[in-house]
């Protein structure tokens, strides 16, 4: 885990005092509302539907127990006793008062945290594989590089007033759990022919109103060239990106309009200039950062207690089968704690639950916690011998829902319940779908299925890359939900295909049930996942089910 050095510490405290002054200068009229707006946004403060919202960075998704406790404290002291984990590894507090925000930022600084560049036309919080440092399939832990990028992008003088926001995701594993192909820049760790580590640099991915899968800009970038190369890309886009239309200003549009070859030519030319400016200081800092991420001391212990609990307790076995992932160390597991109890708000966690997780991380998890873009909480290093006790404690706190990767493990944006941009509600749809399939008792039988819900075209709920995507729109004042099928957020990323007309709020859960029942009838084996059946058969039989067409008519065509 990275710990702030004296420089980081002084930086965040200076930044808090600058923001305190900015709030005062807004109130005394020195700053106009237009001038204050980007300043509050680059410090994480939004103006939402009902109130301000503070978005706090969880850099590359990594926290320790003291930091999670501090988030719990903030939730209780200045908010309504809960926080909301987002699809970009942030936590949002929905009800802060403007005058309290500098004090909240100071409380974050006390725990080595911040809300810098979680919004605005800046380089945003860098996201990473939530299993980093623990996954069995990893080439290298990407978090030291992510921290290096955090330091480079923080308060970068050229990049505080970009054409639009700029999002970077990084993974150290071939199995992409960081959605790198749907980011402005995605970095995938790869090896060259000699075994040296580098990055495949993907540019111009993104969701939103113009979803695009990123293109490879550099097949192999030596790790030592990371910062000068990123600087070259953002520098080129800062001048070339469109500023006449905010819907066309993201780098995906620049790449689309100029072509990947022209962008590549400009970036490589700029890179020759930027690389000359980095003389080794960044690599010395990277080496120092790396020492913070040394793996914990994994100890060999018997897993007999784990095996015994599996045999004795079907509920525990179900939790273990669903919520554990393979760890690189013998006898250890990665535990995902679902925030999606059936009927709960995806991503919400109460202060009391945060403290339970913090305690458990300290007791059983080498004091490490992760937040995933799928809005769940992860204990990356738990020995299997400790799992029975961990499970009981989670169950006590309402945190033992065994649904990770299943139909009720839904990504949902805050939607019209909170967000000023939303055109429809997301959370109630997620809650109703989860409740429906729980009542039907079909969840385990259905197996792996990712539903993702966005409450507007900006696609914060990643609906384009859901196996089933749901997009809530406003049709003449009435909520209408459009469905996409076959999306994929992994290394084989694709944008889901649109179906036909959308559904009213009270029709959409039935529509999802028809799709799922069609899948159950169509799959070849119980092991063929929804998306595999969809790829094998195409959209037609699913559309028949969705729109309740007579199958005979289709067969006669």
């Amino acid at each position, binding site marked *: 885990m990275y710990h702030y050095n004296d*420089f980081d510490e*002084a*930086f965040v405290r*200076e*930044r808090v005092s*600058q923001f305190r*002054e*900015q709030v005062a*200068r807004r109130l005394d*009229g*020195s*700053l106009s509302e237009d*001038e204050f707006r*980007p*300043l509050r946004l680059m410090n994480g403060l939004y103006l939402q539907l009902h109130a301000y919202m503070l978005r706090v960075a969880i850099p590359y998704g990594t926290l320790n127990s003291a930091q999670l406790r501090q988030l719990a404290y903030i939730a209780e002291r200045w908010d309504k006793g809960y926080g909301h984990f987002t699809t970009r590894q942030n936590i949002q507090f929905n009800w802060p008062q403007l005058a309290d925000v500098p004090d909240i930022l100071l409380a974050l600084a006390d725990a080595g945290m911040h809300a810098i560049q979680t919004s605005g*036309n800046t380089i945003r919080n860098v996201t990473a594989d939530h299993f980093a440092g623990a996954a069995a399939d990893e080439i290298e832990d990407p978090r030291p590089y992510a921290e290096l990028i955090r*330091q*480079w992008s*923080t*308060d*970068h*003088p*050229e*990049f*505080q*007033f*970009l*054409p639009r926001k700029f999002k970077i995701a990084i993974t150290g594993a071939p199995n992409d759990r960081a959605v790198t192909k749907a980011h402005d820049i995605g970095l995938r760790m790869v090896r060259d022919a000699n075994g040296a580590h580098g990055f495949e640099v993907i540019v111009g991915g993104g969701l939103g109103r113009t979803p695009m899968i990123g293109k490879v800009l550099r097949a192999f970038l030596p790790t030592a060239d990371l*910062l000068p190369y990123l600087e070259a890309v953002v*520098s080129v886009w*800062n*001048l070339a990106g469109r*500023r006449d239309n905010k819907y066309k200003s993201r780098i995906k549009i620049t790449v689309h309009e100029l072509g990947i070859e022209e962008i590549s030519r400009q970036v490589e030319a700029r890179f020759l*200039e930027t690389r000359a*400016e*980095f*003389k*080794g*200081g*960044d690599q*010395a*800092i990277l080496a120092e950062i790396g020492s913070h991420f040394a793996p914990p001391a994994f100890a060999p212990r018997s897993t007999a207690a784990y095996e015994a609990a599996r045999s004795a307790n079907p509920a525990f076995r179900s939790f273990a089968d669903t919520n554990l992932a393979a760890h690189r160390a013998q006898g250890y597991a990665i535990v995902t704690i679902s925030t999606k109890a059936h009927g709960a708000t995806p991503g919400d966690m109460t202060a009391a639950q945060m403290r339970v997780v913090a305690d458990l991380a300290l007791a059983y998890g080498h004091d490490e916690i992760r937040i995933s873009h799928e809005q769940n909480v992860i204990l990356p290093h738990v020995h299997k011998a400790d799992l029975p006790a961990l499970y009981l404690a989670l169950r006590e706190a309402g945190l033992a829902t065994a649904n990770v990767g299943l139909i009720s493990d839904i990504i949902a944006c805050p939607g019209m319940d909170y967000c000023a941009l939303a055109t429809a509600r997301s959370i109630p749809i997620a809650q109703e779908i989860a409740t429906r399939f729980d009542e039907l008792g079909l969840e385990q039988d259905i197996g792996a299925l990712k539903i993702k819900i966005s409450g507007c075209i900006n696609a914060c709920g990643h609906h384009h890359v859901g196996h089933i995507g749901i997009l809530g729109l406003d049709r003449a004042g009435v909520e209408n939900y459009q469905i996409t099928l076959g999306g994929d957020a992994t290394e084989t990323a694709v944008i889901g295909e649109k179906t036909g007309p959308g559904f009213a709020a009270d029709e959409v859960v039935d529509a999802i049930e028809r799709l799922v029942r069609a899948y159950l009838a169509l799959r070849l084996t119980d092991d063929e996942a929804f998306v595999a059946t969809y790829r094998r058969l195409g959209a037609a039989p699913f559309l028949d089910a969705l729109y309740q067409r007579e199958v005979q008519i289709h067969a006669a065509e």
Partner: protein
Amino acid sequence: MTVIVTDRGFADDDWVEGAALDLPTSTDPETLRGQLAGVTMVRVQFPSFADGRGFTLARQIRRMGYVGRLRATGPLIADQYAMARRAGFDEVEIPPDLAVRQPEPQWLARANWQAHDYQSRLRA
């Protein structure tokens, strides 16, 4: 009259030595190659404080080896002073009404732009 902001605070414009090169922020820096020899003042004209192209333009002008005076002109806000200095500008020229609304102390508060700077550490 416009106000010139430097690390020492507000001053009147002392530029009297003839022609300066005035550049809009939309300037493609590649068109400046070979054009900066003999130039002693470049003014980059920010149409709005939200247009951040001028910061990259300044970096590119410095990367081309320009060592003369480099001025950001336009409605930049005091909070951007450190960014302008770090990007390679020597000074900022602001309209008189802005200098009234954001008086000298608000700009001098960011005259410490060399402190708390990640970039200088990473490029050491």
